Every structure is written in structure tokens, then in C-alpha cells.
């Protein structure tokens, strides 16, 4: 006879519960209110099975890692930057997002680190919504000129009438050469902001590549030429099909981070555009 949490259970039940514990440890997602690209919470991702007859939901680490990084210390340096032995600072790389414009050619004009993943390993990120910050420069009361430092207001954005939607992603396997740890790492593609997101994410004018069902299927399940890959990654989800509301600046500590919150004096978004 065995015990689980102090309760006497049969051996078969004990085995069932222990197996379930293992599964829960592996699939501990889809219930986190806010997944930040800078936290360690894995992301729910759809990937095709081997013959592309179906797909499965897996976990991936958000922030694509190039295979040449040897261990987690190298990963840390890659992501956050570091000062070398000569005192020279090396800037870190932010690889949570991959600009659609640079999937194949980098901003410097060379081969992009995302190219292989864009051609070979495309996936869909499951999302219920995302967060962006709108920058609003108040006016100096004396001069009437915009202040240099903007006030920032967080928004929650999702797709109307859909519990979940798809973002285009690409992924790269990575192995820690010291520990043998193996993870799949992910970047979400981004495109130019549509008329809604241009107002919300007005500092960068970018948005994630959100795909309707047809494009999502093409992205993940079909062979695509480079031009088509980039075309889909560059596509803008219609602004009219999206919803945005302000939320409290403390949203990351809230039980429901998506609860609407009104800011007095914040100009409303122009939804007629």
C-alpha cells in the first residue's frame, strides 16, 4: 500500500499520480497571466509532427539561441552583454523577436541568424493576448513643448472573438555542452504596425505577426519559398479585428493582468483610422 499526500492509495493509483506529476512538470503552461520574454516561463508553441500530417503543442524557451553558444554562462553574456578581459563592452542581443524584414538578410546586409530557422523550423505561438506600451509626451506647462521623457501607458491587445490566436514563430534547438541540457528556443516574427498598433506601440511602430487560420496553416505546414515566407511574416493582421485597452501599470502583479483600467486625461485611440 502507498500513500499520496497522506492518503492511503493503491499501488496502481500511486503510479498514476506519480506519472501525472511528471506530465504536469513538463506541461506547466497556458495558465500564466503574463509571460515576459525576460522571465524563464516557457511558451506554448505549435509545431508540425514529422510528416506534417498533424501538429502538437510543445514548450519552448522564448529568445532564440544560436547553436555556437557553449553553455548558460555564454547565453547570459549573449543576452545581457558583457565586458571582456580588455574592458571592452559587448552589447547583448535581444532575440525574442525576429523582424520580418531581416529574416534572410540582417540589418548590416549579411546573412541573418534567423534564415535557417525561417526556412526549416517555422511554428505558431499560441497567445490569448499581448502587452505593449504607449508613449505620451506631456507638454511643458511653461514652454508648451513636449517633454523629453514620455509617460508610458500599458495596453492589453488581443484578437476580437477569439480565445486564442496565432503568432508566427521560428525556432532553433540549443544544447548546453556542459550539462547536456537541450531546449528549443523561439523568436516571434514582427512586422510594421497596423493603424491600431501604430498608436499603441507608437515608439517602435511594430507588432507581432498575427496570422489567420489559413496563413497559420501555410506558415507551419507547407513548403514555402523565401519570398513567400517573408510575405507571410510581413503580413499585418487587420486593425478592425483587434482590441486594445489600457491596463494598470502594476499589471504584472495582478491576478488578472488584462483587467481594463482607465487613465484620466489619456487621449483615446482613434479607431476610425
Amino acid at each position, binding site marked *: *500500500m502507498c500513500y*499520496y*499526500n*497522506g*492518503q*492511503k*492509495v*493503491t499501488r496502481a*493509483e500511486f503510479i498514476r*499520480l506519480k506519472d*501525472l*506529476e511528471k*506530465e*504536469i*512538470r513538463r*506541461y506547466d*503552461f*497556458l*495558465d500564466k*497571466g503574463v509571460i515576459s520574454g525576460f522571465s524563464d516561463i516557457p511558451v*506554448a508553441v505549435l509545431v508540425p509532427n514529422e510528416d506534417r500530417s498533424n501538429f*502538437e*503543442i510543445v514548450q519552448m524557451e522564448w529568445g532564440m539561441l544560436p547553436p555556437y553558444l557553449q553553455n548558460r554562462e555564454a547565453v547570459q553574456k549573449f543576452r545581457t552583454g558583457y565586458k571582456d578581459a580588455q574592458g571592452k563592452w559587448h552589447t547583448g542581443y535581444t532575440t525574442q523577436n525576429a523582424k520580418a524584414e531581416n529574416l534572410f538578410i540582417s540589418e548590416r546586409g549579411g546573412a541573418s541568424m534567423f534564415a535557417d530557422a525561417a526556412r526549416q523550423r517555422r511554428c505558431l505561438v499560441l497567445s490569448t493576448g499581448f502587452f505593449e506600451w504607449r508613449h505620451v509626451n506631456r507638454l511643458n506647462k511653461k514652454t508648451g513643448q513636449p517633454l523629453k521623457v514620455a509617460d508610458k501607458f500599458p495596453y492589453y491587445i488581443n484578437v476580437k472573438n477569439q*480565445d486564442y490566436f496565432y503568432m508566427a514563430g521560428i525556432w532553433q534547438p540549443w544544447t548546453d555542452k556542459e550539462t547536456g541540457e537541450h531546449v528549443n528556443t523561439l523568436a516571434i516574427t514582427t512586422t510594421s504596425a497596423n493603424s491600431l498598433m501604430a498608436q499603441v506601440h507608437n515608439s517602435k511602430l511594430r507588432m507581432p505577426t498575427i496570422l489567420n487560420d489559413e496563413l497559420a496553416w501555410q506558415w507551419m505546414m507547407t513548403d514555402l519559398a523565401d519570398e513567400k515566407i517573408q510575405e507571410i511574416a510581413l503580413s499585418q493582421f487587420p486593425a478592425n479585428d483587434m482590441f486594445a485597452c489600457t491596463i494598470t501599470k502594476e499589471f504584472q502583479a495582478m*491576478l*488578472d493582468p488584462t483587467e481594463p483600467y482607465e487613465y484620466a486625461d489619456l487621449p483615446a485611440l482613434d479607431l476610425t483610422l
Partner: protein
Amino acid sequence: MVIDGKKPFRIELEGKILEVTEHYIGEERIFRVLFEDKRKPLTLVVAMNSQHKKFWTSMPQGRQEEAENIGPLIAWYYKNNQK
């Protein structure tokens, strides 16, 4: 594979709001509870003891008291919100 097709619901325990989501791992039904305070999320399942009686339990082990307090509230919610 985890499939979660339902929205979270809220229950109240000792004046505090808990947010609960239902998940399936294969055919196993599990509940995930998020707290207002800084407590770690709690995973609950219904198990069967050696007397063939069902009981709520935390997964992993170690939070049985919470499981026994919260589980029945979840059951009550479902009983009173069935369509």
C-alpha cells in the same frame, strides 16, 4: 498534450479571490489555481483512496490542506454553474 479550451473562473476562499483554470493532460483532468497573494500556483486533481473514495489532492504533494479547502469550492462551482 495539454488542451485548455475553457476560460478561467473565480472562486472565493476566506475573502480572497482565486482564479481557476481547467486543463486536460491526455484524459486526466487537472485544475490550476492562482492566488491574489504571492503564493505559488496550486495544481489540483481528484484521486481515489484505497477505500475507493475520491479525494482532492495537490500535485506535487505537500499542499494537501489547501487542496482539501479549495477542491470542494471548485466542485461547488461546477455544480452550480452547469448549463
